[in-house]
């Protein structure tokens, strides 16, 4: 069995309201120099599946290619 970590984020240019709010909140707390905050999803998968299969899972269900990018990190055997 293999273990994967999937990060799903909005595509470049798509407004991320929670990220923008967190960015403003950090500025309000006095943190200077925070240029950008993006909030996405983190998904852990343990499966008898190769990388190609996990990519297909992302394309079909876990991410929406119209608005989101995804990055798969292979964590090795679970």
């Amino acid at each position: 069995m293999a273990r994967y970590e999937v990060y799903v984020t909005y595509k470049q240019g798509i407004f991320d309201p929670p990220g923008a709010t967190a960015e403003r909140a950090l500025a309000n707390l006095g943190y200077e120099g925070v240029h950008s905050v993006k909030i996405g999803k983190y998904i852990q998968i343990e499966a008898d599946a190769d990388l190609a299969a996990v990519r297909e899972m992302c394309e079909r269900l876990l991410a929406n290619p119209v608005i989101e990018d995804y990055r798969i990190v292979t964590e090795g055997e679970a």
Partner: protein
Amino acid sequence: MRFGVVLFPGSNCEQDVVHAARMLGFSAEYVWHGDTDLAGFDALVLPGGFSYGDYIRCGAVARFSPVMAEVVRFAERGGPVLGICNGFQILTEAHLLPGALLRNTGLKFICHPQPLRVERSVCEWLDLPADTVVDIPVNHNEGNYYCDAETLARLDANGQVVLRYCEPDGSRAPGGSAPNGALDDIAGICNGRGNVFGLMPHPERGVDPLVGTTDGRPFFTAIIKRLAEVAG
């Protein structure tokens, strides 16, 4: 003429749609999301709500319900399909309509009557003249329509933009009139053929005068009139 109202786990506007259709004198029955038989239905409605708890993304899980393969086949044969709110989100996830619905830019769940301008479109579900302003409630957290520039140009060129958010006089504010940040103030779109229509506002809540407006009635009557004409 008979409406089928598809019921997913977490739908919560199906009773409003059935009530609206029956009030207008049409027959309307529920279709469970696990059903695969759509025989006997003339038009389908995917109602609003929170199908599958909106997990992953709104509509992302519902689009793989057993009934959805049949809904896609029904639509491909030219059958009229209307997606309201969560139903619209499901139609985009199912690729029956282009684009996606993002989180409202203001991060607030919005719930209020909303002026909408009818655009000149190929939509079979509406027969109102272009520039008619209707007042219909919106009620959502993810209604911020988005598509890429190429898709937007195609929607405009093909007459697929059916409704835009507007000011009460029908104009659009310079900074946009969409209460949710929707691209180009888009509130509703249809497919190229005009039989599949998705919108964020709730026309079923504009049928019974008890709730304040009857502006939603044409959204149900026009398609039935058209189907009756086709049937001769």
